[in-house]
C-alpha cells in the first residue's frame, strides 16, 4: 500500500462527501415577520412591516367596530389599530404584556395591526414558501398566500394587501 501523506485536498474532499446537500446561497430569500395569535403562528412579508411597536398608548374612539381598537400617535402621525384576532374570527383575549402593534404598509394604505406576540424576523428561502393547502379554514383561504414549516410550526403567510383591501371595503 502506497504510504502517502494526507493532503488538504483529501480533507476537503472528505468533508464535501459528508456535508450532505449543498445549499445554494444564490437562491432568493424573502424577509418575513413571524407573529402569533394564541398558539397559531402567522407571517407578513417584511416589506409590509415598517415597525414593531411596544408600549404604545392606544386611544379609544367611540363608534368604531370591534375590529378597530383605536388610534396611536407614532411620532406625530396618527394611525389606526386593527385587531387581527377579530378580523380572523378568533376569540378576543386580554391584551398580554408581549402584545405588539405591527405598523403595516400596503401599496395604498397604512395601519397598525395588533398581534399577541412577535416571534421572529427571518430571511427565508423563497422555495421554502409552499402553496396553501386546501385544508385551511374557509375564513383564511382568501388571505393566506403560502405556508412555511419552521421548527415545529406551520406558519400561514398572510396577504396584507388583500386584508387591507377587504377591510377597506367592509368585507371583514
Amino acid at each position, binding site marked *: 500500500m502506497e504510504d502517502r501523506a494526507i493532503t488538504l485536498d483529501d480533507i476537503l474532499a472528505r468533508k464535501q462527501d459528508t456535508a450532505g446537500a449543498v445549499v445554494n446561497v444564490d437562491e432568493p430569500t424573502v424577509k418575513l415577520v413571524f407573529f402569533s395569535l394564541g398558539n397559531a403562528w402567522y407571517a407578513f412579508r417584511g416589506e409590509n412591516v415598517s415597525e414593531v411597536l411596544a408600549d404604545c398608548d392606544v386611544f379609544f374612539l*367611540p363608534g368604531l367596530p370591534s375590529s*378597530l381598537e383605536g388610534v396611536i400617535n407614532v411620532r406625530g402621525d396618527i394611525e389606526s389599530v386593527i385587531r387581527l384576532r377579530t378580523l380572523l374570527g378568533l376569540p378576543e383575549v386580554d391584551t398580554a404584556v408581549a402584545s405588539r402593534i405591527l405598523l403595516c404598509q400596503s401599496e395604498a394604505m397604512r395601519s397598525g395591526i395588533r398581534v399577541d406576540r412577535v416571534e421572529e424576523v427571518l430571511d427565508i428561502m423563497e422555495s421554502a414558501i409552499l402553496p396553501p393547502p386546501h385544508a385551511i379554514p374557509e375564513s383564511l383561504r382568501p388571505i393566506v398566500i403560502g405556508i412555511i414549516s419552521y421548527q415545529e410550526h406551520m406558519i400561514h403567510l398572510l396577504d396584507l394587501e388583500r386584508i387591507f383591501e377587504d377591510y377597506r371595503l367592509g368585507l371583514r
Partner: protein
Amino acid sequence: MQQDEELSVVCFIAGGYAFAVEASQIGGMLDTAPAKFTSVEELLGLTAATNSFRRWLRVGERYVEVGEPVALCFLPIGSIYHLPEFIRMRIQLKGIKALAVMDKPVLLVDLNHLFDPIKSPG
C-alpha cells in the same frame, strides 16, 4: 399656515366622549332648554347621553343639546389630524371631520353637516 396657529372650537361631551365643533358654527348657548332642540347624541348616532348636566348650542336657527363641560378651546393646528383612512371608512358616527390629539383624543364634528348633509360637503 403656521404651526403655532390655533383653531377656536367649542368642546363638549356626547355619550361620555369628548367632541368639538368649530366655534364659527356656534351662534350662542342656553342654560335652559329651548322649546325645540335635537340631542347631539341623536345627530351623531351615539347611544343615549350619560351625563345629566346639559347645555344647548345654537347652530343657525336650531338648537343642539350637548353634555357639560362646554367650553371655548383653542386647538393648536399641529394637534389636528385627518382621520386615518380605516377610521374614516368604518366609524359609525355621522359628521366626524377630523381628530385632535392632546392628552386625549377629541373628535371634531361638523354640526352644519349633521343638520343639512346635502348642502354641506362634510
